[in-house]
């Protein structure tokens, strides 16, 4: 049991170490999105196609939200009054719907790559 726990913690440490030494990140285009009253602002966000995008999402509500998109293959929690960064693309031209998983009735939006 103790050796098991030791090997488990070793494995976790190794993985974490490998991940922390990751290269620096860069994107060519920055886009911003806000969450207010469980809605996205803007609800339709235009971004360039064929470019790597850094998307900043600011949650102005006091409650947590989860930014999620099946089309973009992304999901990330953003706490109340918090901001997250999500890297996207380069995307093909098209429409990519996204939603707030915790308030799906209102938190709906679409990313349009042109």
């Amino acid at each position, binding site marked *: *049991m103790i050796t*098991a*726990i030791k090997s*488990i913690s070793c*494995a*976790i440490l190794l*993985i*974490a170490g490998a*991940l*922390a030494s*990751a*290269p620096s*990140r*860069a*994107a060519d285009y920055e886009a911003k999105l806000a969450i207010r009253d469980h809605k996205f602002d803007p609800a339709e966000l235009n971004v360039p196609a064929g470019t790597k995008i850094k998307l900043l999402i600011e949650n102005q509500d*006091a*409650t*947590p*939200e*989860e930014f999620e998109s*099946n*089309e973009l*293959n*992304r999901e*990330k*929690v*953003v*706490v*109340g009054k*918090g901001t*997250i*960064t*999500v*890297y996207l*693309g*380069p*995307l*093909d031209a098209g429409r990519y719907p996204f939603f707030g*998983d*915790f308030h*799906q*009735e209102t938190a709906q939006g679409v990313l349009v790559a042109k």
Partner: protein
Amino acid sequence: MLGTGLLVFREVLEAALIVSIVCAATRGVPARGRWVGFGVLAGVLGAILVACFASVIAEAVSGIGQELFNATVLLAAVVMIAWHAIWMASHGKELATQMKAVGGAVQAGKQPLSALLVVVAIAVLREGSEVVLFLYGQAASGAGALPIAGGIALGVVGGVAVGFLLYFGLLGIPMRYFFSATNWLMLLLAAGLASQAAGFLIQADVLPAFGNRVWDSSALLSNGSLMGKTLHTLIGYDAQPAGMQLLFYAITASAIALGMKLWGGTSSRPNLSRPTA
């Protein structure tokens, strides 16, 4: 209440599917229930902790703490499943023979259950922390205690029920093939979790995508549908996988398969040829 129930159901379902496979893979092992129970309990406690420190985790490592955390626990689960699957490949036939001989009660319960306890705990922790954050938001925005409690009850009962369905379905597999079947399921589960980990590392821009969408089968089966989500959890189905995810999937699957062949093939044969008393 229905909205709450639905979200809780989706998260509980994902964890329940993984727990079901683990339960099937440890069929007949003494004290198995206790190990799985501890795993669930540790997962629930962990989920509450992770939810409490959500903003700390989110801000860590210049904003990619959440992705690194998810990828790390997912890869830890992959390592644990791989260990168990390879161990079972070398002892599974022995177990199946014994189960037939003594009517389901295996005494040689030397399986590395600690590895699977970690897998169960991680599954519950990942889905549970989202539930906790969601419920905290519901409570903070003034939803009543009764609809929240009702939603939790609906979601948990529904999710666990589907988990039991899968478990009893798996028990229907003939004993001859049972442990090799659960072993292959564990292999696919691990490969899927590795692919999810790669997805988080791409999202954090730690790893290149190697092609954002290698294919798009969302018209056939979308990631958002219940079936898509179920297969996503069980075998790592993705309607629009990135190249790096496929690479992680293939490497994990072949590494475990190779391990099962290397260590499994040799040590299980003598037990088969040995006449059973």
